């Protein structure tokens, strides 16, 4: 008997495995899947063209209800609050260049200029197109909107001055996305969060938030104001995630008090973020 060729070995292994799977049953019915498809989502834009750092950009912030997470392999790690002020969600106004100026003492008050019109991340400039042939389910001009270089002369806002009502200039997460972000007044803060849990979905760690009734209303107000534009999610004075609101939908759908934050989190970071968020109530 002659030895099987490489092609035969591979073909046999692949087809056997594919054949075995054909009889596997889906985890939910088609009707269940359709029922959750209308729920709103946030998507992290593909910023590969905006910044050169690609590794940590495979981030998707999506909103599912807990029901959509029934395959997560780890139980959520609930975290209880202690006090502080470490969490906010703010409208994202523009991406900002790294600070190039002299070293500061980190306490100097800064009056920030507005974002230049070329860099402004408003919904009109982003120009989300729902559907199209894109795999992501939407298209946008986001990759063509430049980082605002004016801010190279401005240090990041010191934590003590990053008040909810202020416009702030904050750092991003090292190795992930733009260097810095200019963000408007907070639409959601730690007091709006009822609970936060770290959980794993499809191998990726996420922070899942359940909002208070008042928080749910405030989040919908911010998200609808930023529909097809971006929000920045701030934890401990850093932007951990900056998703587009509902880019695959042609009109805004309320979030029903739930919010999932995806980032380049590992387990420890997701737990720490959840802890910081509920700690800021």
């Amino acid at each position, binding site marked *: 008997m002659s030895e099987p060729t490489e092609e035969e070995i591979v073909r046999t292994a692949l087809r056997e495995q594919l054949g075995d799977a054909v009889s596997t049953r889906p985890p939910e019915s088609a009707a269940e899947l359709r029922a959750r498809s209308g729920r709103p989502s946030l998507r992290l834009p593909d910023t590969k063209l905006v910044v050169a750092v690609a590794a940590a950009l495979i981030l998707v912030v999506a909103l599912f209800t807990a029901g959509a997470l029934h395959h997560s392999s780890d139980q959520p790690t609930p975290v209880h609050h202690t006090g502080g002020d470490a969490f906010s969600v703010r409208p994202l106004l523009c991406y900002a260049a790294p600070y190039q100026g002299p070293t500061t003492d980190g306490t100097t008050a800064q009056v920030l200029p507005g974002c230049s019109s070329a860099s402004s991340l408003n919904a009109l400039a982003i120009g989300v197109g729902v559907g199209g042939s894109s795999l992501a389910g939407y298209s946008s001009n986001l990759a063509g909107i430049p980082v605002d270089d004016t801010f190279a002369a401005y240090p990041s806002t010191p934590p003590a001055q990053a008040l909810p009502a202020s416009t702030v200039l904050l750092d991003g997460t090292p190795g992930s996305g733009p260097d810095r972000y200019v963000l408007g007044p907070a639409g959601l803060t730690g007091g709006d969060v009822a609970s936060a849990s770290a959980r794993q*979905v499809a*191998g990726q760690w996420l922070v899942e938030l359940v909002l208070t009734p008042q928080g749910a209303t405030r989040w919908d107000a911010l998200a609808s104001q930023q529909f097809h534009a971006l929000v920045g999610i701030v934890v401990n004075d850093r932007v951990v995630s900056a998703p587009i609101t509902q880019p695959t939908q042609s009109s805004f759908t309320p979030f029903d008090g739930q919010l999932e934050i995806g980032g380049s989190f590992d387990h420890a970071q997701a737990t720490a973020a959840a802890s910081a968020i509920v700690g800021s109530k």
Partner: protein
Amino acid sequence: MDRRDGAAFDAFYTASWGRLFGQAYVLTGDRETAQDLTQEALLRAWRRWDRITGYEDPEGWTRRVLHNLCIESWRRGRTRSAHRPVDAPPTPDIPVHHHELAQAMRDLPGDQARALLLHDGLAMTVPETAAELGVPEGTVRSWLSRSRKVVAARITQSEQSDQPPVRRS
């Protein structure tokens, strides 16, 4: 107004689920990840269902989305792979060589793994595979011969090891 045909989608879902899941499992080697990504791909298909059914092969569209999701999931997992060289222990109902196959696929560049899955797994022709991946046919042929060597070596090695593959009866 929702013009989408729910009944047609449900029939498509039932008919294609096992095939799509199998491909995701070949590419990820992890049952839960494969299930999650299959659901995500089908969710996207339903969101665009009115368009997809109009002029395209719905399973082909969903398959492309799914394969991309699987390859993306490798990149997310790669940072952790130093701590977890073997992704997950094979569960009792999964033959050992299935796990080896998925590991070998993950060692390939994403496009090569997709080419192998489409051509050798799904029995697509070289021109069909080239069209799906958007590369010349010659590229597909050279990818196939290169990636078969890697995968065949890995499977053969595992079959000759002390732990024989457990096959389903």
